[in-house]
């Protein structure tokens, strides 16, 4: 069945690396889902059914983690003992924070632009480009075993991903 002592990569028989074969991930996910399907446990004891629920939760978390570029990076660092997800006060480069402030001000301005849809799209493109750069930066630093610098790139991704969600929320508002 499923060994929850395996790390998420092992669970999907994937190498522990930032690049993930999404097809293999999706295929193996479907296979494991079948193995864990509740119908296959309906005749079993209460305890085994409870276990199947736990395994399913583990499987889903693993799949969501490896699918998302940000969560995958956070997880790779976690395997190295670096937790970037619950840090509250870390000093960030002022220039980066300044840029984040600017991008958020652009988002505010987009709502009042003559063509808000186009303004949002342009901003989305800018943020996507910066995210791509940080992902590349992460991968390079991670591969070089420079986990401090890799964590720096992940922190930047966290700010940018938050902004992506905010842009999407604005878009939803626009469509309503």
């Amino acid at each position: 069945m499923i060994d929850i002592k395996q790390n998420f990569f092992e669970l999907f028989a994937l190498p522990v690396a930032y690049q993930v074969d999404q097809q293999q991930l999706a295929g193996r996910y479907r296979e494991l889902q079948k193995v864990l399907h509740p119908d296959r446990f309906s005749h079993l004891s209460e305890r085994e059914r409870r276990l199947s629920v736990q395994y399913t939760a583990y499987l889903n978390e693993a799949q969501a983690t490896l699918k998302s570029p940000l969560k995958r990076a956070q997880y790779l660092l976690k395997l190295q003992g670096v937790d970037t997800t619950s840090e509250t006060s870390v000093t960030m480069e002022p220039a980066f924070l300044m840029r984040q402030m600017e991008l958020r001000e652009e988002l505010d301005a987009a709502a009042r632009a003559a063509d808000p849809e186009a303004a949002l799209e342009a901003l989305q493109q800018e943020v996507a480009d910066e995210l791509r750069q940080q992902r590349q930066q992460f991968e390079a630093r991670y591969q070089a075993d420079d986990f401090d610098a890799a964590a720096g790139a992940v922190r930047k991704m966290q700010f940018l991903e938050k902004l992506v969600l905010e842009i999407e929320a604005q878009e939803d508002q626009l469509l309503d």
Partner: protein
Amino acid sequence: MAYSEKVIDHYENPRNVGKMDDGDASVGTGMVGAPACGDVMRLQIKVNGEGVIEDAKFKTYGCGSAIASSSLVTEWVKGMTLDQAAELKNTAIAEELALPPVKIHCSVLAEDAIKAAITDYKQKQK
């Protein structure tokens, strides 16, 4: 999670939102961010010849508690000397706003922001 009345008040009527000219030597700017939640905070102070903060402005992109914490700090530091402002503790902010434990880090961010603004101002004087 319910916000306290004071947080809601600052959130709905934030004090001193705005921007000062960073090129002005009497202005100190503190930029801080919380990577875990993606919040960004800018807090600025304008200091007079006697070393007293005569104006303060902020802009925060974040949750209600982060906005309220920075708004409150701009109110508090006006009229303070730099030394007094540097003594400001996040616990006082958290207590005033009745922040729940999961939001304490927002008050830490505001404390970091005022400290960064003071440091920036002092560096400009050199």
